[in-house]
């Protein structure tokens, strides 16, 4: 590890053990905790005078690798780490472009970069956000690679008039580093807010999708979905069919929660899904993660539901906060897509213990209890994220927007 006497070591350790023990449940809370931890890392990290962004990225990466290893199944952890890395790169570039703007020094940069600078010069500093969006475009990503260089040139630069009321020549570096840090921390705070609000953001769109007297089918339980349905219930009346989601039977819990808001619900077994699907107008489900190709890692049983929906031409809608969006592809062997839980959820150990033991040549019975299914993108009709509805084929574009390609592999 990097940290010499870094104050965040203990926090990281604690987080790693917590993650390893699977004590944090749900991708939203995991994402939130990760973002909070990384904010702590960024704020405690001492930065050298040059190549600050690189140092910050290095520190976040080192911590990131550890948290991802602690729970490789919770893909949200990796997503947030990559988001934070992206934020750092972005802030660094925008800081660079800002200062370039200020000093109107563009002659010694590459052409493309100059274009950007000029472009934002036209639209004043308040349009910095727009600049950032432009920078995000993958076509410009070679620009990001030259970031450390830019930062270095910038440090050597003469302080400009607009920025330097109380700033001395020697304080320049300090301020620059503080500014980068400050911006990054601010951006992570925004990210945290985004994670916090993702349920309500997704739920806001409920009325566009659920219509009067429709029958909605779902499987298992998802907080996003619950909020979504509750929101729709405020204006519309409709029915929900819930497949119980064996072996964890979280569907039962969802049914109870929905009953509390007077939603008409019907609980069915997972195996009855195919029989029910013909009466259903739409399938709406939550997801564990959305892969870059538009495939979905979802609670076990959803692949079957998706196939049933396809067979009867029922739209299959997936709700997912942006933190569930993964830049990885599902065929990457390093990406763990499934978690095999204890067989005791399926079968009672006591009843079963006498069949477990090995007759020579292996125990007679295996009990496998996977938590997730992979639903290929062809079966998904629509993703509803906090930024709106998207086609599965558009997911790669979202990925490009939120992550830097350098960070896909940590």
């Amino acid at each position: 590890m990097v940290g010499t006497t870094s104050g965040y070591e203990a926090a990281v350790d604690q987080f790693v053990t917590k993650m390893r023990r699977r004590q944090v449940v749900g991708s939203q809370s995991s994402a939130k905790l990760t973002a909070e931890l990384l904010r702590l890392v960024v704020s405690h990290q001492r930065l050298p005078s040059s190549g600050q962004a690189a140092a910050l990225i290095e520190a976040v990466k080192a911590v990131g690798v550890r948290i991802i290893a602690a729970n490789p199944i919770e893909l949200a952890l990796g997503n947030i780490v990559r988001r934070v890395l992206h934020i750092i790169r972005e802030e660094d570039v925008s800081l660079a472009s800002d200062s370039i703007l200020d000093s109107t020094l563009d002659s010694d940069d590459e052409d493309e970069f100059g274009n950007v600078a000029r472009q934002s010069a036209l639209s004043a500093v308040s349009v910095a956000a727009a600049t950032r969006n432009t920078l995000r475009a993958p076509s410009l990503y070679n620009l990001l690679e030259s970031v450390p260089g830019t930062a270095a040139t910038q440090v050597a630069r003469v302080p400009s008039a607009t920025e330097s009321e109380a700033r001395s020549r020697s304080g320049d570096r300090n301020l620059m580093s503080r500014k980068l840090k400050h911006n990054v921390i601010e951006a992570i705070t925004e990210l945290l807010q985004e994670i916090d609000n993702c349920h309500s953001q997704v739920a806001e769109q409920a009325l566009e999708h659920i219509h009067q007297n429709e029958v909605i089918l779902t499987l298992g339980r998802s907080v996003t979905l619950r909020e979504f349905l509750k929101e729709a219930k405020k204006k519309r009346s409709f029915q929900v069919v819930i497949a119980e989601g064996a072996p964890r039977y979280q569907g039962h819990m969802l049914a109870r929660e929905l009953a509390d808001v007077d939603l008409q619900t019907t609980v069915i077994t997972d195996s009855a899904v195919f029989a029910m699907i013909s009466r259903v107008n739409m399938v709406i489900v939550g997801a564990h993660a959305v892969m870059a190709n538009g495939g979905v890692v979802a609670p076990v049983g959803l692949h079957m539901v998706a196939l049933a929906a396809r067979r009867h031409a029922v739209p299959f809608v997936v709700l997912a906060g942006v933190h569930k969006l993964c830049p990885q592809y599902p065929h990457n062997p390093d990406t763990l897509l499934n978690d095999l839980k204890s067989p005791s959820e399926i079968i009672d150990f006591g009843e079963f213990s006498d069949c477990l033991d090995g007759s020579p040549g292996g125990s007679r019975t295996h009990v496998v209890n996977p938590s997730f299914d992979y639903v290929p993108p062809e079966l998904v009709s629509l993703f509803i994220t906090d930024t709106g509805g998207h086609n599965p084929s558009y997911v790669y574009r979202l990925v490009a927007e939120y992550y830097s390609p350098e960070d896909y592999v940590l």
Partner: protein
Amino acid sequence: MAKKGARTTEMADYEVHVPLQAVLLADSFAQKFRPITLERPKMLLPLVNVPMIDYTLEWLASAGVEECFVFCCAHANQITSHLNKSPWMSQPDFTVSIIESHDCVSAGDALRVIEQRGVVRGDFVLVSGDTVSNMSLTEVLKEHQERRKKDKLAVMTMVVKKSKPSPLTYQTRLGNDELLLMIDPQSKQLLHYDAVREPGSRDSLQGNYVQRHVSLDRSIFHDRPVVQLSNNLQDCHIDICSPEVLLLFTDNFDYQQLRRDFVKGLLSDEIMGNKIFTYEISNEYAARVDNLRAYDVVSQDIIHRWTYPMVPDILCAGPKASMRLERCNVYKEGGVILARTAMIGENTVLGEDTTVGDNSSIQQSVIGRGCTIGKNVVIEGCHIWDDVRIEDYVQLRYSVVCDGATVKKGAILEPGVVLSFRVVIGSEFRVPAYSKISMVPQPTEEDSSDEELEYADVASGRADSPRSPFTEDQSTRNGSISGDEDDTAEGPNWDPIEVGETGAGYRWAVRDGGQEEEWRHSVAPIPPEKIQEIAAANSEHDVEEVDYDIRALGGRDSLEEEEDEDEEEEDDFEKEVAETFLRAARGVSGVQQEHVVIEVNSLKLAFNKTFADCAGAMFKAIIDLALEAPHPTAKELLSITKDVFSRWGSLLCKFLKGSDDEHEVLLTFEEICIESHKEFAPLFSQVLHMLYDIDVVSEDAIIAWASEKQYADESDKVFLKQSEKFIQWLKEAPEEEDEDEEDDT
């Protein structure tokens, strides 16, 4: 009361938050893993490539234990250095402290040492360092603590889990003997704990199977409508204990083992009235690695992920080398090199940097880190630890191979073999089944007593054997020790007959129980011929097998008689108590008050009575004493009664443990007034007042009595009316008294 006073105050203030503590015994005080444990403590042996103690600590930490005391004895330095190197010592909300002691030979000694240190402050979890579990402690702790609030005598809660023993061998999956537990299904109180050992080692040699009898104390059925007798529960060896458990161990210095001595002792000893309760887990996993069979079974359970999240791919997770789970429960750590033709079968774990050569097949095995496995090797059901070299054409079946061992070309290990550290098996050598080979020579009987502590149990076990109560109950382990056969006397040089031409190591002579018993505890599956043998033997004894003959203690035989006898017993009991009392009252030489208490207590046990019964009988006896003196008028009778009670009231108080008992006294008194001695009838309220004055009965009991009588028949209310005034006064008085008390405190 006075005797127990000190103890009660100690446990009274446990409501103050104390961190949840755990006592982890990092010593098994047994020698089932020998010869391996001569060189490394059992708790550090790798179970699916992770030292056992790490499973236990991981579980304790994740279950919310805040302080853990690791007690080490044998190989304490190894355990200490392991813990110091591990991350356990620097956890933020989980502190591990090591308690070392070198002269403990049993769990009992260990607990006595811990008691002396005075580190345990509240309820604690008592486990041994070879426990693998993923259960949550919240529920069981809550149950335990709630029970303790109601009943101070509920000192321990034992965790049990359903698991079917094999119907043939009467053995659980874990290689332990079938366990017979009797539980009160309502209160979950444990009433009987017995390891049913059927074909005793020596008996089975003679082909003579012992009948399966269980003796149950008849009193168990007394006040319980239902009891549950189960043989499908597995003792998880996880106990939630109150601090009194430690005191009990200190008080009874002959308690050695937790189960054999302590639990059975507590269940049979009713003087203290301590109770043990059970808590059954169903979805969670808990097991103790007690012997090699358990080692194998628990390994497989871990591989099958019953212990989730204590599974290899999570426990060994780290940025450096991470364990990957592949199809059919194959776990591979980083750096594993497999030849293209190597066949890795199901339920297999391959440690970091292990290489497997061409055409080798591995099945159902755990291979440690840094092992080299040659070509055309067959490995099935083995546990191979770190840095083991296995050369070409070797066949290993159901064996344990420790760190650094080498098996040379073409050697064959038959099922049940244990190769300890650094042993070398020569090429083309065939190791017979169940052999144990170590670089350390087998200690002879003489040096066992004063050498390594892992040996110590031999000494203590032998010391135990003359003590009849224990050996009778559980002749399993001790009985077998005497059946040693010492046929191999090896020289200092390695014998090619034992380990092959180029081999190194001593082959250990089979010690506990002879070859016949080896299959029970070995990693090898029970051989089919053994099963057949047992099955054949069993069919002969079919009749006895199903017949759980419930024999009551004390020669009384059947349950039907019980009802009739109850009445007689009542009279007998009262007579005995009265006689005991009168002996003291008349000043028979040397009989003192304390003696009466002891004697009545023993009568209580003999007749299986409650304290209330004792108090009632004692009260009767005192009244009788009062009546003995001449009493022409009621007034005189009252004064005599007063005298008698002022002298013997304190004795009566010894049996008044609660207001229920006092209530019983009042009822007895009422009965006396109505039935036997009518001369007391007019004096009822005065005597009542007197009893109150000398603190025999409390106002609570009187008021409870009064309120109960309120709804009785008019005829029953005579005494209530008589003492109405007094009760009225009592009801008004409390406020003042309460205030006084508050002032006092």
